[in-house]
């Protein structure tokens, strides 16, 4: 062996050990970091078109409750949540779809036929037939599904439902 390529046995062992150690550390360490932060990298957002029923089955001028359930999986635990929307057909083709979740604290509002108002049983919030706030603590009108969140296919009314 000649010239500057000489490397002592000790240095060779040191460098090799360091290189192999670094390789093993990275091969386990980098996947381990991904393993740890994996839940933070999942979006958890889902969306789906939910059929609410035949459009002509909804009575014109009368808010009708349509309910559906959605299941979410957190880790290995599945949770099923119930949702409800009020469908109001204003004409043969025009619909107004309102969420039944009170915008105050999320209780389910009911349609009161006598008063022609949505009433929240929790804090007596009142909403008009179009979802506008008439009284009580709610900060904003009932959420509505409008525009491209609503469609009719083969006579069935669908809403575009987003979660997460």
């Amino acid at each position, binding site marked *: 062996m000649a010239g500057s390529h000489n490397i002592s046995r000790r240095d060779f062992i040191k460098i090799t050990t360091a290189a192999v150690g670094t390789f093993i550390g990275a091969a386990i360490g980098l996947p381990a970091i991904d*393993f740890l932060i994996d839940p933070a990298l999942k979006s958890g957002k889902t969306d789906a078109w939910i059929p609410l029923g035949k459009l002509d089955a909804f009575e014109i001028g009368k808010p009708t409750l349509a309910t559906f359930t959605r299941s979410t999986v957190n880790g290995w635990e599945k949770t099923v949540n119930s949702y409800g929307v009020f469908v109001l057909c204003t004409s043969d083709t025009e619909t107004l779809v309102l969420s039944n979740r009170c915008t105050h604290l999320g209780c389910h509002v009911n349609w009161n036929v006598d008063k022609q108002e949505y009433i929240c049983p929790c804090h007596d919030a009142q909403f008009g037939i179009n979802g506008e706030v008439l009284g009580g603590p709610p900060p904003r009108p009932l959420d509505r599904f409008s525009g491209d969140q609503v469609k009719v296919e083969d006579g069935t009314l669908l809403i575009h439902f987003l979660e997460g």
Partner: protein
Amino acid sequence: MWKKLFAWLDERLALNDLYKATLDRPEPKGNWWNTLGSASLFLFLLQGATGIFLSVYYTPSPDHAYDSIQYIMNGVAFGWLIRGIHHWGSSVMVLVVFIHMIRVFVTASYKYPRELTWLIGVGLLLCTLGMGFTGYLLPWNQKAFWATTVGTAIAGSVPWIGPFLLKALRGGTDLSALTLSRFFAAHIWILPAALTGLIGVHLFLIIKHGESEFPGKDD
């Protein structure tokens, strides 16, 4: 700059002395059989690291143990890798520790002044087997359940104190949530703590006495 920093740290932490005592100590002429102790230590650290990672998702309850492992295997990025290393690493560790023991026996390295290093090594072997036994139950599948049923029943066959041992191991007469949680506690706290302490003394004694020379033809 770095030299000054190192000198400052060295003066306070004795880094050079530590390095010389652990990695630069004089060794008798040996061969690859002498590396099994270091291999055991590496496997212990590997099992410790992967085990800590697994505990992030694993849930030691009959309702969740099996599902949480299914989730680790299929739902978490590189979960299959972390669990795979832990699963196979346990078998490799038992094997390597056992071969290490045989090597020490064959080269008569347990003799004066290393008798206590050997005895502590026996404790380390038993703890390693205990880790294997307790870890085997944690997936809470059929194999785990019945293997532990049989294993604890064997402890129950000891004369006089058998029934007591069986109930102490199972946390009751039957395998239950209590068995799972006490095996989990043993697997991640009690046995690792014992192993860590024993490894510390084992290593101290090895550094203190140095490695034994292979016996020659005259011995």
